[in-house]
């Protein structure tokens, strides 16, 4: 068993989203500054989204019912991460492997066609329900790879992916499993999109995180997964460590069901917890991958908090490349944070043009070299749930 504040090694990364169907493709897109925006019809209007193109979706994706596609995305990201980690089927069989994944759509029974028929008294077939009961993303991944360790689907809304990685690290530290597949997966869904439209927090143009003229978020889809592994397991198979999870924090605003606390009270505590667990000071952090959804409220909170807590530390949002992938965001952004540590640079915060006079924080406007070893990724969710992860690069 490891100490409760011991760094947990990461041996594999997997990711697919609109910015790339694999970690190398994602890296290429980020540093090329390319946006892959698509347009989706919702209730007669066209909205920008960040969706996987038909060449990027995993096998069987379109054949699945909507809710099971989240699990398909998670399986594809897990597959890449396990290959990256060098974990074969034989390795997995000999180890206790847990799965901890965040999602929103993957746990929601919101099949519109079924429900319209139900409401109209047309007595729909219950196959959509059977599919929903098969669609739990963590279970789908565990079954796909024959894993029998602890299995947890976290539904903390938009912080789910980050929270999942933090909890999976606790499992590894506590010896509940030798290996944990952790991150998040979510997909575009018209019902969820209608919900965000109702909240008036979407932009009709490609999103502009931290920009003065930002109007809101664009939705995206994808999955981001890391493989966390005990030192003993790594020693046994002589594996390569890609990075370390050094710190994790999770705290609540206790303020509002859908809006962040304006002073960033809960986010600050989550960041402080992560720093404490990592035995680091704010000045030790070399860059921040912000939640940066491009909603006026979210970016104001982060844009004020970062210069106050982390003066001079460069930060940016990658939502301009990926869209807001909801429960997957924390997983995808954890992967991006680690790949930035490996690349020793962070991408320009695409969509940002004009500073907002309402806060001091300014995201990076060009690809920016970083010299240090510590990257921070934060997530903010409905109901005021905040998560922070600190990664250390493998120098």
């Amino acid at each position, binding site marked *: *068993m490891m100490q409760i504040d011991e760094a947990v090694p990461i041996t594999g990364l997997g990711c697919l989203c609109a910015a790339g169907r694999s970690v190398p493709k994602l890296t290429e897109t980020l540093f090329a500054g390319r946006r892959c925006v698509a347009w989706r019809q919702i*209730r*007669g209007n066209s909205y920008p989204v960040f969706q996987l193109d038909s060449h990027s979706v995993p096998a069987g994706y379109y054949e699945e019912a909507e809710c099971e596609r989240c699990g398909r995305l998670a399986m594809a990201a897990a597959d890449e991460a396990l290959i990256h980690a060098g974990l074969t089927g034989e390795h997995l069989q000999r180890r206790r492997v847990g799965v901890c994944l965040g999602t*929103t759509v993957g*746990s*929601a*029974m*919101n099949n*519109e066609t079924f*429900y*319209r028929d*139900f*409401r109209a*008294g047309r*007595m729909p077939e*219950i196959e959509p*329900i059977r599919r929903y*009961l098969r669609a*739990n993303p*963590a*279970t789908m991944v565990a079954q796909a790879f024959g894993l029998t*360790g*602890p*299995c*947890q*689907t*976290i*539904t*903390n*809304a938009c912080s789910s992916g980050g*929270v999942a990685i933090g*909890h999976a690290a*606790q*499992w590894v530290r*506590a010896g*509940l499993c030798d290996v944990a597949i952790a991150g998040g997966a979510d997909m575009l869904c018209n*019902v969820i999109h*209608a*919900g*965000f*439209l*109702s*909240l*008036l927090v979407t932009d009709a143009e490609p999103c502009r995180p931290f920009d003065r003229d930002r109007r809101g978020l664009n939705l995206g889809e994808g999955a981001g997964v890391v493989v966390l592994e005990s030192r003993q397991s790594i020693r046994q198979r002589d594996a390569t460590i890609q990075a370390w999870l050094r710190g994790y924090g*999770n*705290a*609540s*605003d*206790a*303020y*509002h*069901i*859908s809006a962040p606390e304006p002073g960033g009270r*809960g986010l600050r*505590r989550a960041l402080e917890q992560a720093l404490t667990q990592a035995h680091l000071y704010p000045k030790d952090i070399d860059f921040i991958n912000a939640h940066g959804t491009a909603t006026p409220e979210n970016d104001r909170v982060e844009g004020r908090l970062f210069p106050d807590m982390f003066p001079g530390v460069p930060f940016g949002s990658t939502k301009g490349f990926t869209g807001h992938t909801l429960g997957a965001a924390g997983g995808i952004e954890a992967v991006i944070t680690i790949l930035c540590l490996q690349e020793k640079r962070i991408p320009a915060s695409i969509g940002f043009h004009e500073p907002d006079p309402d806060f001091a924080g300014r995201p990076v406007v060009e690809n920016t070299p970083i010299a240090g070893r510590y990257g921070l990724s934060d997530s903010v*969710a*409905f*109901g*005021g*749930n905040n998560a922070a992860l600190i990664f250390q690069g493998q120098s």
Partner: protein
Amino acid sequence: MTEPHPAIIGVGLVGGFGLGKQAAIEALRTGGRPNGTVPVMSSSGQRQLPAYQVDTSPVSRFVAPAALRRMNRFAKIAVLGASLALEDAGWSIPLKRDDIGLVIASGYGASKSTFDFLDSMIDGEGQFPSPTLFSNSVHSSAASHLSIVLELGGPCLTVSQFEMSTISALLTACQWLQQDHVKAVLFGAVDEVCPVLGYCYDRFFGTDAYGPMEPFAWDRQTAVMGEGAAFLLLTRGTDNSNAYGHIDRLAWTQNQDVTVPGDSLLVLGADGHTCCAANYRRLSETAATQTAYTPVYGSLPGGQAFDVAIAAIAAEQDSGCSRICSVKCDANGNCGVIECTFDQGRRGHA
């Protein structure tokens, strides 16, 4: 589980049996039965399916009307269960603390709000649906409302793993305590009944969805849908002289690997679903003493939390056992195992 074992210092229960410990104990004495019905459209016309349903009106005892205005039914059920657990432990509301964790387990989440939101989409073709219903439709809505009402700024988690929700979430709650992330955890399982669930019961099980629940009738489908909340207030297992007892061991395992300690009462989560019956039957054949509390609260994914809570209050009233092994199985062969030791009659103020 490493020492010290988490202590259970408060229990909050709400379900079809009513509100609070006495209502649950009374249902345990009488055997329990559904207290309501859900209308279901079937090929032979509208039918009324039995269900264990919560009366949420007492929530106003704990929460100001303004705070209730935007709260969905799912969250009200959670607030009732949580408030009762805190009251049971003698803790005043709001807590106003950042060192208490909140962990919610739910099989289906805020299902009624999800379908209410779909209603608002469908009814308002061309218009924006209700933002309040959307905010309330996410699985984490109960945890969010609870953190706001109780003024809890600590870590917060919602887990949705169907029948394994309770064991999965409780593993995390106990880790938080053992790793000293928090001083206490308010842990609860919450699920709600909705018309779509009733329709599914009718379509899946037909006339077998009428109960009564017979958890040991292995070959028959007897599940009756239920809703409610079961909350446990957990602390590190030191300096808790007024505790119900302790959680000794938690395990997520496969059915064939479950062994029931010889001195423990086996509390089976058998809730009348034949898809899981073979697993329960095998376990049943290995245990000297066994029971099932499911007829008290009905069939719901987070039912294992009810089993632990009911066992705790039964022990408190000297009508239960001092050691229990609660087992919940799913149709995939997974089992959640919770072993507890209770101090019978120790609290003495039931």
